[in-house]
């Protein structure tokens, strides 16, 4: 499954980047969403994927019998998902405020702060 995921994640990243390179801020935000999702999947699948063995210790046991999916990347991804959610909600609102202030969805019209 991992090689298939590698390709899928590549496509996801490509989509994300493509969206971010557009001039519309809305597309930029959608690109950011795709980007963080792709990164999370990458962490998840690069560590190896395991079918049907969630990292849970059965009731009454000290450790799972046999191998389980690596819990650490899962915890990392969980953290990353929540962080991405926070960042994304911020960006979404930022884009709305930017639209209200600049009155354009066109990023090319937002270059006053550079020279």
């Amino acid at each position, binding site marked *: 499954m991992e090689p298939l995921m590698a390709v899928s994640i590549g496509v996801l990243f490509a989509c994300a980047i493509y969206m971010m390179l557009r001039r519309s801020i809305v597309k*930029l935000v959608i690109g950011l969403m795709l980007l*963080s999702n792709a990164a999370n999947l990458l962490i998840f699948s690069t560590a190896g994927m395991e079918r049907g063995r969630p990292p849970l210790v059965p009731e009454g046991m000290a450790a799972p019998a046999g191998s389980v999916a690596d819990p650490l990347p899962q915890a990392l991804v969980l953290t990353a998902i929540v962080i991405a959610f926070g960042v994304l909600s*911020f960006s979404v609102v930022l884009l709305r*405020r*930017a639209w209200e*202030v*600049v009155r354009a969805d066109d990023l090319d019209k937002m270059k006053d702060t550079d*020279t």
Partner: protein
Amino acid sequence: MSSQIALPILIPLLSGALSLVFWRFRGMQRFIAVGGTAALLLSSIWLLGEVNAHGILVSQMGSWPAPFGISLVADLLGAIMVLLTGIIGFAVAIYSLATIGRGHEAFGYFPLMHLLLAGVAGAFLTGDIFNLYVWFEVMLVASFALLILGSEKAQMEGAIKYVTLNLVSSVIFLIAVGLLYGKVGTLNMADIASRLAAMEGDGMVDVLAMMFMVAFGIKAAAFPLFFWLPASYHTPPVAVSALFAGLLTKVGVYALYRVFTLIFHHSPGYTHEILVWGAGLTMLSGVLGAAAQYEFRRILSFHIVSQIGYMILGLALFTPLAIIGGVFYIMHHIIVKTNLFLISGIVHRLRGTYDLKKLGGIYRRYPWLAVLFLIPALSLAGVPPLSGFFAKFIVIRAAIEAEAYGVTFIALLVGLLTLYSMIKIWAEVFWKSAPEDGDTDPYPEISHREVWLVAAPVVALAVCTLLIGLNAEPIHALAEASATQLLAPERYIEAVLGTSQEVQP
């Protein structure tokens, strides 16, 4: 007892949480701002003292032995950076009392400031690569929020670029961490280092090094990844600019130092050579960017970029002397650059603009401010005997001794152009007479209390600059000790992993 390493992180976190709880109580927030940053400063002084006395300190969070839990590690570089964070935090907190508008205070300025400091301190102290990512994000989101506080048009435009490019950097970092974990199965930096050392010859190490280089290069605003910085740093309230200017990019630089001395130091002929070129181009493009500007804060912003080049150069040359120079440069720069931004804020307060063409006459009206400007400005340009001179001198000496003549030339040229920029500000803002007929001042008089609040941090930082210059020996000794540690990663690894047996819970 090294558990207190966490204090410089927990104190600002606590201050931030408390100011959040006291959201509606302005006085309380201001009190926490001063008290919290003062406590941070004290704890960071203590930490540096401890590290200086006892070597690298390690604390295993949750008592989980390394590499399984998260280790906080304070080596000299980390402790120095934390101390600088404390200094800058305290200075900016005082300055903010006078300059931050009520609106900003009412909408979370102080909690955001505390949490920014927490993120920065966390990044300096963590010994875990993913935890570093988390602190980066804390710092980043705090900076996002500080950047947009006020919702001006320019802030929004700047913030979009800032946010986007920094998020890209975070994602690159995250990808690199994911791949690294997949490869070596650990997150503890010391453990990564020792495991990668065992894998030497596997070219993936260099590939991952490139990812980290770009990720941190963006954070550090290195060429050609710095776009977000000049686009945004001049837009928020000046206390925020000062905080950013002093600390944020330096976290990127710190991360480069950490990673490229501890983890990716096996093929410096490849990785560090790229860094050399990056450093040279960063210096040059930053300073040229500044030469094209006529706005106080924009000039200063571009100079952050160019100075970052010097710091990276110290790392890139990768000789003991160069690392000393780099560390010295970081110490000097954080103080000086923050101070310059604070001064730009005072000028703005007095004259209502940052535009050099509209400014003037400050030298005549406020000679004390002129002197206060000259100290950091000349220090930034590397004029002796101020702090910047020694920083530049060591780096250049290292470059010449490493026979990197091309980059030496750039470094010297950039020094000249930096002076040119500072002199431009001096001539336009201070010497030139004010454009609309000299001494008529349409701006409200600055109150005594305000003067004290804005001048105290500026004076204190200027005194630091002078002291670092005139009494360079202790700072140099510190930088030297820090460089020795950085160039002996096995000591770091030993400190982190070696203690793991004793703290077994």
